[in-house]
């Protein structure tokens, strides 16, 4: 267990290292020649495109955070790139409801915020659910009205969750690739991720050092944010230690009707405006022969194209195979991580694994894909690169921050004494895992597996650089198709992913999945 965790965590460390090394190396890494130079770093940093992309990244990330944290609700299982199309088809200049005449970083930041509301909602709701309701009851009995209770008791108690949500969205904001690629690039704007993606097209000769500088900037920002997040959370949780057993009753706060109606209206507006209209537009687009409002003709040609073309068929199959492999591989890796973190006897190893497993959190999918490309090219694992397994391994390592938290949470819920009694009563560690842990974790293993599977289906940024002709998946195909004008096919492929994701989401909610 520990060994597996150590190896996997070390791969993550290598990936980050590769980016930085390439950034200061004038030659491509795969030539195995090192020529240290800061020229590219200085050149890129001084270039106006880079500066502009950096500023735009900051705008998108900050707006996503604010807008996302401010409102709340609905599925987070649809890839941002698909949201990009959905918003373009619904509110774009030639969408069904042409709300925007053009897209710019301000608008896109707000859109990103709106589609990330569920992340914030899920985190804050879990804080709300684990809160001791007697705290609010006492406030009410001691004379505070409902709004005062929310302002003075509930929200301050939720501060750790709010801080967590805000920092998470800030990190996700810098990693944002799909939405800006679809909505900003056509209008001549770049954020760091799309700028990185565009470099090979602009600089045909040895684009790698340049790409590494941009990727390095991105991960420097995200790593700093991850460290900031850890620090803030540590500080917050220290201040909010709950003493004794939590009372888990439900206290329904009576609220004035007007406020209730207001909350309901906001929720409704959000669901209709942010989720239903864009998704409906996307689906409509996939069955319309021409792009634009008011057309009454329908067609299934795009779906037929997908089914009839062998390369699309393979793409669909690949998507499922890679998601399946990644979910399985991921479950195994995260269990070993979680086991080492929670049960490890050597504290130093636990801390190392804990830190490194959370590091991919700072690796935007696109950058991770790039790092994996170099990793595969430079190591004996080269042959893996052309296989589904190689792609799945990349997914599994990049998701580890999330996956480990998923497994650690359920592992922590099992009292240590259940294991102790089994051990003293004659069961070895292996048999304790088989007879006690696995039966008890059955459901949460299934839930996390399905969750990872959904992530696998919607993944689009990791495979951009490492998917080869035979391992292309839906996500990377959509990215490749963007310049081709095959808008109908993109919409149809997106719809397929959305439907698959929603079905699987319904299943895991049914199984009792709780976000965060």
């Amino acid at each position, binding site marked *: 267990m520990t060994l597996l965790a150590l190896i996997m965590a070390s791969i993550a460390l290598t990936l980050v290292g590769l980016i930085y090394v390439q950034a200061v190396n004038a030659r491509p890494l795969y030539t195995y020649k090192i020529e240290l130079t800061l020229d590219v770093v200085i050149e890129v940093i001084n270039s106006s495109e880079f500066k502009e992309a950096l500023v735009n990244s900051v705008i998108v990330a900050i707006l996503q955070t604010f807008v996302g944290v401010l409102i709340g609700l609905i599925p987070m299982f649809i890839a941002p790139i698909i949201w990009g199309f959905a918003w373009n088809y619904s509110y774009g200049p030639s969408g069904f409801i042409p709300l925007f005449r053009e897209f710019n970083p301000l608008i896109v930041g707000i859109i990103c915020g709106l589609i990330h509301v569920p992340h914030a909602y899920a985190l804050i709701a879990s804080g709300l659910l684990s809160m001791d309701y007697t705290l609010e009851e006492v406030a009410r009995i001691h004379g505070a009205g409902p709004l005062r209770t929310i302002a003075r008791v509930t929200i301050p108690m939720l501060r750790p969750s709010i801080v967590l949500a805000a920092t998470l969205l800030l990190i996700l904001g810098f990693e944002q690739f799909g939405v800006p690629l679809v909505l900003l690039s056509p209008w001549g704007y770049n954020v760091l991720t799309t700028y990185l993606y565009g470099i090979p097209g602009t600089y045909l000769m040895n684009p790698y050092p340049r790409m590494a500088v941009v990727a390095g900037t991105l991960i420097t920002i995200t790593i700093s944010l991850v460290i900031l997040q850890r620090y803030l959370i540590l500080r917050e949780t220290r201040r909010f230690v709950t003493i004794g057993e939590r009372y888990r009753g439900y206290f329904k706060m009576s609220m004035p009707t007007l406020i209730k109606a207001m909350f309901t209206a906001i929720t409704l507006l959000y669901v209709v405006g942010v989720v239903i209209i864009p998704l409906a537009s996307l689906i409509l687009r996939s069955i319309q022969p021409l792009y634009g409002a008011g057309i009454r003709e329908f067609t299934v040609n795009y779906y037929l194209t997908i089914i009839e073309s062998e390369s699309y068929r393979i793409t669909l199959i690949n998507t499922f195979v890679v998601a399946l492999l990644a979910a399985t591989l991921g479950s195994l890796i995260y269990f070993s991580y979680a086991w080492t973190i929670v049960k490890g006897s050597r504290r130093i190893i636990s801390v190392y694994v804990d830190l490194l497993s959370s590091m991919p959190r700072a690796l935007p999918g696109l950058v991770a894909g790039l790092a994996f490309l170099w990793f595969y090219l430079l190591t004996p694992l080269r042959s893996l690169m052309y296989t589904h397994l190689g792609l799945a391994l990349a997914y599994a390592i990049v998701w580890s921050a999330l996956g480990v938290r998923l497994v650690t949470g359920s592992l922590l819920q099992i*009292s240590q*004494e*259940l294991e*102790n*009694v*089994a*051990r*003293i*009563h*004659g*069961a*070895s*560690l292996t*048999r304790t895992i088989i*007879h*006690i842990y696995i*039966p*008890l974790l059955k459901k949460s293993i299934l839930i996390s597996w399905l969750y990872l599977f959904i992530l696998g289906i919607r993944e689009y940024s990791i495979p951009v650089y490492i998917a080869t002709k035979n391992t292309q998946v839906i996500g990377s195909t959509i990215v490749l198709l963007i310049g081709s004008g095959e808008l109908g096919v993109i919409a149809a492929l997106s719809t397929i992913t959305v439907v698959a994701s929603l079905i699987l989401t319904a299943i895991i909610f049914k199984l009792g999945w709780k976000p965060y």
Partner: protein
Amino acid sequence: MGSYILQVENLSKSFGKVKAVINATFNVNRGEIFSIVGPSGSGKTTLLRCIGGIETPDEGVIVFNDRVIFDSKRGINVPPEARGMSYVPQTWALWPHMKVRDNIAFGLKMRGFPREEIDVRVREISKALKIEELLDRYPWQLSGGQQQRVAVARALALKPQLILFDEPLSNLDAALREEARVWLKNLLKELNITALYVTHDIHEALFLSDRIAFMYDGRIRVIETPENIYMRRDIPELARLFGYNIIKARVIDHERGLVMVNEEEYITCDNPHKVKGDALVIFAPSEVKVGYSGIKAKVLRRSFMGGYFEYSLKLGDNIIRVISEAYLKEGSDVFISTNRCTIAPIT
């Protein structure tokens, strides 16, 4: 040697800078109920877990059933499953995914007993503990008292040489706890089981044990029979567990045990020669006489306990607890004396 089932020598265990157990040394006889008593944080549970093999001691030797199961110098550390003990934790830790029957049978399965024998043993033990009708239920369908019985049944089914108990009764309510105490003692004695029993409740330990080790700040301070430990009033930390009064005083004549407890007021203690100068004086609330002679004290509060009263008295700067059948008015001055008080050094 053979009469000891368990020998612990110089066992120490630290967590970082905190020394949880320091040089613990004791032996447990076959068939004995041996209790380890101490306030929370005294290291008693850590000691128990070291013996069970869940925690690895830093130093020391543990011999169980004439076999060395732990020796830090020789690098011996037998894993918990191979030690041949059984365990009843504070939370009982019944495996929630197994029926009562499977909970009880688990250890037997792990030790490779044939199926028929497992069935016989489960039936035997559940009959003896009157839990036959619970066998096909899951733990969450049981009351607290039933869960506690199942946890004990699970430990007994293995017919172990030693059962480790970690405050097994503390999750029961007061009335049930009294009942379970009697039940558990009868059961262990009838089956002639050796038990190592950790508790913070000195009265529970007095009732159940053949011998008691008192632990404080990681050290075993004294090992005595219940009768003798009750007499040990020279250890303030132990006296506190018994609920005795502990007041500061000054030894005037250590030859005769004469102590000044208040300005110009003296009592005589029964262990002279012990301490000089500033000291602690320890006496039981029930051994204080209230009358017309002795030291002056003020009645602060009277509580009716049914058959007797419990008083808070102010004695100089100290507040003491006194149990008496006499009715005293709150606010009045009274005179108290005691014929059993002990001097202890200030720690």
